[in-house]
C-alpha cells in the first residue's frame, strides 16, 4: 500500500473542501482499502467522512424514500421503511457480501464500489479501466464472469453491486453536493457510466463531488418486489445473474413493472422491453416466460460466458413468477 495522509473533517463543508482539493472520500472502506492494498488504488489523501450527518433514512414530503449515503448496508436492510416499502432493496442488500462487510460498508460506498474483474485487480495485467490504453486482458482471457451487455472493445467488466440493480429497477436518483456547496440530483441510471472508450470513468461525478443520499421514488401501492441472485455458491459470492423486480398489480392487471438485471452488464441493466411486455397484462406463467424472453436483448456473449444469456432469461422469469405469482 502506498502512503497516504488522512483527514477527519467533522462537518460537511470541511469535507467538501478537502474533496475539492483532490482528497478521496472514504466511508466503510471495504472496497477502497482492499484495492489500495493491491495498489490498484493509490490515493494520496483520504477524507474520512464517517462523522458527517448523512445517516438518516426517511420519507420525503412527496413520499419518496431517502437513504443517507453513510447508512450502513446492515442498517438500511433492516430499516422498517425499507423492509415495508421496498423489500427488493432489503433483499439485494442482505444477499450482498457478508454480515461483517455489511456492518462496515455504506450505501454511498456501495454504489461507488469497483468491478471484481480479476484483471482489474491484478496490477500486472492489462486493464483499460485501471490503466487507460493498456488493453483489456479479459476480452480474450478468462471471461466467464464478465458482462454480456453494455460492453465495449475497451472493457467487459461487470458492475458488482446488488443494491445498484434494485436502485436501477426502481428508477432511484442520487443526491450530490459539489465542493462549492451546489447540489444536484441525477437519475441513478445516469450516475453509473458504461465503459465506451473511457472505462476508467465509472461515475458521472465531478471532481470533489460527494454523494449525500440515494432516493427511491414513491410508487403506486400495493407494490410487490423482490431480488433473486444466482451465483456459483449459495452465499457470500457475487452474482452470475440477478434480477430485481417490482410490480404494481391492481384488479388483476399489471399497471407498473420495474425490472433490472445484475451480473450481466457493465452497469446494472434496466430491462425496458421486459417491463413493456408486462404492463397491461394479467399475471400468468405464459406472460412471465414471454416477457423474460426479452431479458437478454442485445447481449454480446464472450468466449466463456455464453451461458449467461439463457441463465439471465430464466433468472428474470423465475423472479417475475416469485413476485407476481400466477393468479
Amino acid at each position: 500500500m502506498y502512503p497516504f495522509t488522512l483527514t477527519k473533517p467533522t462537518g460537511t463543508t470541511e469535507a467538501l473542501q478537502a474533496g475539492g482539493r483532490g482528497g478521496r472520500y472514504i466511508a466503510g472502506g471495504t472496497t477502497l482499502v482492499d484495492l489500495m492494498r493491491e495498489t490498484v488504488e493509490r490515493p494520496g489523501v483520504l477524507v474520512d467522512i464517517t462523522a458527517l450527518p448523512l445517516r438518516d433514512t426517511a420519507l420525503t414530503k412527496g413520499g419518496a424514500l431517502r437513504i443517507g449515503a453513510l447508512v450502513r448496508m446492515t442498517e438500511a436492510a433492516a430499516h422498517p421503511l425499507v423492509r415495508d416499502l421496498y423489500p427488493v432493496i432489503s433483499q439485494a442488500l442482505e444477499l450482498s457480501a457478508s454480515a461483517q462487510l455489511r456492518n462496515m460498508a455504506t450505501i454511498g460506498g456501495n454504489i461507488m464500489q469497483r468491478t471484481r474483474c480479476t484483471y482489474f485487480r491484478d496490477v500486472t495485467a492489462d486493464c483499460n479501466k485501471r490503466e487507460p490504453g493498456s488493453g483489456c486482458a479479459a476480452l480474450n482471457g478468462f471471461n466467464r464472469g464478465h458482462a454480456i451487455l453494455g460492453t465495449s472493445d475497451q472493457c467487459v467488466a461487470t458492475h458488482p453491486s446488488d443494491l445498484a440493480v434494485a436502485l436501477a429497477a426502481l428508477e432511484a436518483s442520487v443526491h450530490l453536493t459539489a465542493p462549492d456547496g451546489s447540489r444536484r440530483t441525477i437519475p441513478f441510471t445516469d450516475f453509473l457510466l458504461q465503459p465506451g472508450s473511457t472505462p476508467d470513468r465509472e461515475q458521472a461525478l465531478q471532481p470533489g463531488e460527494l454523494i449525500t443520499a440515494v432516493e427511491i421514488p414513491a410508487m403506486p401501492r400495493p407494490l410487490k418486489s423482490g431480488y433473486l441472485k444466482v451465483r456459483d455458491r449459495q452465499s457470500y459470492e457475487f452474482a452470475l445473474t440477478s434480477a430485481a423486480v417490482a410490480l404494481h398489480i391492481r384488479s388483476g392487471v399489471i399497471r407498473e413493472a420495474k425490472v433490472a438485471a445484475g451480473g450481466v452488464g457493465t452497469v446494472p441493466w434496466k430491462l425496458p422491453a421486459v417491463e413493456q411486455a408486462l404492463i397491461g397484462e394479467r399475471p400468468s406463467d405464459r406472460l412471465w416466460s414471454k416477457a423474460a424472453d426479452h431479458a437478454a436483448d442485445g447481449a454480446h456473449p464472450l468466449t466463456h460466458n455464453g451461458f449467461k444469456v439463457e441463465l439471465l432469461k430464466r433468472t428474470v422469469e423465475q423472479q417475475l413468477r416469485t413476485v407476481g405469482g400466477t393468479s
Partner: protein
Amino acid sequence: MPVADPESDRSATAEAVPAPSRRTFIATATAVSGAVVAGGLATAPAALGATEAVAAEGPPAGTISLTINGARHTATVDNRVSLLDLLREHLDLTGSKKGCNAGACGACTVLVDGHRVNSCLTLAVRLDDAEVTTIEGLADGDHLHPLQQAFIDQDAYQCGFCTSGQIMSGVGCIKEGRTRTPDEIREWMSGNLCRCGCYVKIVRAVEQATGQK
C-alpha cells in the same frame, strides 16, 4: 515501484539474512522509541538502526486512543496499518488470524463497537475512541464464553485457524438474532470460511450457544 508494503512480511525479511522477523523488528523499534510506530519501519532499509528507521521521514501516521478487551491503549500508527496488524504485530494479540487479508475469509473477525467486522479491512488510524473485542477478550478469566465452550462441546474445528474468527462472528450473529434456524445461521455465518469443512458442527455450536449468556 511502491514503497514496501507494511503489511507484507516479505518487506521485513527479504532484505537481509539473517533478517529479524517482522514482529521482533517492530518490537525492538517500539522499545527504543517508546512509541508504537506501526508499519512505517518497513519503508526503511533493514540496515538502518531502529531509531533511525523511526526518525527517517516516516510515512503519514496518526495517534489513536482506543479500548481493546477493556484495556485502554494509545498508539501512533502508520495510516496504512490495519486493525488486524495493530492487534497481531504490535499488541501481541495474535488470536485474530490473517487469512486472505482482503475481506474474503473472515478469519480476522472482531467486534468494533459491538459489531462484527473484518479487521483486515479496517484502518487502525480511524478507530480513535473505538471499543474493540477480540477472541482474547471473550472469556471471563478461566470461564469460557458460551460459544467458546460450544465449539469444544461440538468439536467444531479441525486445524483451528478460522476458529477465532468463527467464534467472534458467531457472537455477532447471536447478538443480531440471526440464529432462528440452521439455515439462517449458515447464511449469516457465510462470511467465515472453514477450509477443513467443519460447517455442520460450527452451526451446531452457534445453535448451542444461542440464548446462553
